[in-house]
């Protein structure tokens, strides 16, 4: 059985299911209660679960994550909302030094089942600090799990799987896809850290996550019209990476292009290129290529179409790979 949801509504439904299933689950963040969040992802939750479990916090990101850690130590499962990607940095210490390391520091005694939801990426014409792709900072940090959903079905299931995880999870939501609709099934088809092969291809595989999955699919369609068989993988998980799946598609298509909105330097694409090259060097016909944003601070909105990788830039990389 399936229902149709927008991506934002699917997360809302996932949160509701998790809260109904476990009364230790609490939602906290700026404007998540009465307003339902600036993207309405927590809409209606305060009415259903009360202000103790859906908490409008003071305006302080370090406080949100730091107190979530305290709640988790006390047996709760907090789900924090960071209002926009660019506002997570005040909480950097709490995430990177506290949340990520508590388990190792306590010699495995203390687990922190905290989820940090972050609307991520650009393409919505926003002002500065509202369009960033900062997954690499967190994926670089041992102790954190980092996932990125691209469609309503995944959004619904992955948020619940993230909440169920006993480790801290950074949960990325592609904000320009919040309003995209899709079918949502009652049961998950994959575990949280599995990649999804959306399309098989024998000439090249595009690897994307979050907001660029749709871009990759569109590029694959365009290439098919020119007679090329291009596969598409939705990573879903950025840490850990589903290396077996990446290895398999690399071996089958011999060429790989990673697409993400983040800048390329030391990004997820670089990690994938290194991993795939290390493990299937002899299967490859071309180096793994990366398509990402330029290595600049996210520019003003009227330049963002030039800044973000689009179908043309993906196809340009596919062509380079095919001609290598």
């Amino acid at each position, binding site marked *: 059985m399936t229902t149709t949801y927008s991506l934002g509504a699917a997360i809302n439904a996932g949160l509701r299911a998790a809260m109904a299933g476990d009364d230790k689950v609490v939602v906290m963040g*700026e*404007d998540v*209660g*009465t*307003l*339902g969040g*600036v993207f309405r992802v927590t809409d209606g939750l305060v009415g259903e679960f009360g202000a103790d479990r859906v908490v*409008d916090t*003071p*305006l*302080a990101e*370090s*406080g949100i994550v730091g107190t979530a850690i305290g709640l988790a130590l006390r047996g709760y499962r907090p789900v924090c909302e960071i209002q926009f990607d*660019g*506002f997570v*940095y*005040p909480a950097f210490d709490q995430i990177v030094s506290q949340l990520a390391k508590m388990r190792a520091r306590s010699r495995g005694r203390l687990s922190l089942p905290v989820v940090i939801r972050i609307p991520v990426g650009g393409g919505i*014409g*926003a*002002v*500065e*600090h509202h369009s960033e792709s900062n997954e690499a900072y967190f994926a670089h940090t041992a102790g954190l799990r980092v996932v990125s959903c691209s469609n309503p079905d995944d959004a619904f299931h992955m948020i619940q799987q993230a909440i169920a995880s006993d480790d801290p999870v950074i949960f990325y939501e592609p904000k320009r896809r919040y309003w995209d609709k899709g079918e949502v099934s009652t049961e998950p088809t994959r575990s949280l850290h599995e990649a999804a092969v959306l399309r098989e291809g024998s000439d090249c595989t595009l690897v994307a996550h979050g907001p660029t999955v749709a871009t990759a699919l569109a590029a694959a369609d365009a290439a098919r019209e020119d007679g090329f068989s291009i596969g598409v993988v939705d990573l879903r998980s950025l840490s850990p990476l589903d290396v077996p799946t990446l290895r398999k598609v690399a071996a089958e298509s011999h060429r790989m292009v990673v697409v993400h909105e983040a800048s390329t*330097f030391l990004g997820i694409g670089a990690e994938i290129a290194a991993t795939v090259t290390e493990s299937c060097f002899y299967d490859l016909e071309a180096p793994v290529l990366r398509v990402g944003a*330029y*290595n*600049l*601070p996210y*520019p*003003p*909105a*009227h*330049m963002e179409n*030039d*800044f973000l990788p689009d179908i*043309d*830039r993906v196809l*340009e990389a596919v062509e380079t790979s095919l001609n290598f």
Partner: protein
Amino acid sequence: MTLTVSLPAADRDPEGGAVSTALATVLGARQDDPRSVPPFQLIDEDGEPTALGVSIGIDLNLAQEMHADMVLARRLDSEALALQRQGELHLWLMSWGQEAAQVGSVRAVRDSDMIFPSYREHAVALCRRIAPADIMRQWRGVSHSGWDPAESKVHINSLVLGTQTLHATGYAAGVRMDRSDDVVLTYFGDGSASQGDVNEALNWAAAGSLPVLFFCQNNQWAISTPTHTQMRTPLHVRAAGFGVTGYHVDGNDAMAVHAVTQYAAEQVRGGAGPALIEAQTYRLAGHSSSDDPKRYRTEDDLAAWLKKDPIVRLERFLRRAGVEDAHFEDLAAREEAFAATVREQCKALRGDDLAAVFDQTYAEAHPVMDREKAEFLGRRDRTVA
């Protein structure tokens, strides 16, 4: 495109004026009391001078000039909101209702005093003679900042809440090392007061006895979150805990804001250490052009504050004081001309090309910038060709 317009504040005193003895006596005594005090007021909601207003005295010329500044600031807001609705601006954050807090404070400091604003201080910017085009640039999505801080002595906006208060504190350390008697004025909101940065800045400035004047526009809301969710202790009281002198003022009374700021600035300038002014005001509009305040606040709440409108109040006062119709008619004409300029300047705004950002990101040459700029230009030329 013309950038010369009739900006508000043409006649203002670049020194911020001088504090009268009567004002100094009253405000000096109030600061000895660490408990919450009612907001300082010189003109009440009906436009009548309060007892303090009568005893301290109200400068009619100043009241007239500030009234004009506030009217123009409000017009910028309504024009900009209309431009946003027409798709000419991506976003606009109105300062509607907060004009007295902004105009009253900025006019009470010297032109050489550096200002670190948040993002809603359009009236402050106008008073520092920043062109409407430069105020709107960022919200049109063509730039991350508008004006040249070296020229206006107003730093670029800070959208990451509260961060600017630390910048102001560090700037003030430099001011002191330079043996200047400038004051550094920084604006922030009630919500931002929950950020660690703001509290670090208050402590830091107090510990170093730095010349910072913290100005909080308590507009009662941080998006949908009311002030009582942020804090239990009013900010002007919290200040004392840091060793920062706290002032409490009716933020919708331009004359009171001016008087308190003038006094506090004089104290800070004189070496008394940092001060904080909490101005009680109200964000009459939604948080931004994307916000729907009906989801979280009542019509009654809004109606109560509409009665305290700072511009209506000052106009009533001026009319009572005998300011003639001609003054208001002149101002209305000035306002129309100003509005036309705002529209014209907005539509004429064009931004840089992405190529420029490669040059603007580092001060010194950087190989990645060179390589990627060439890549970008190559792609652009191929698309054009």
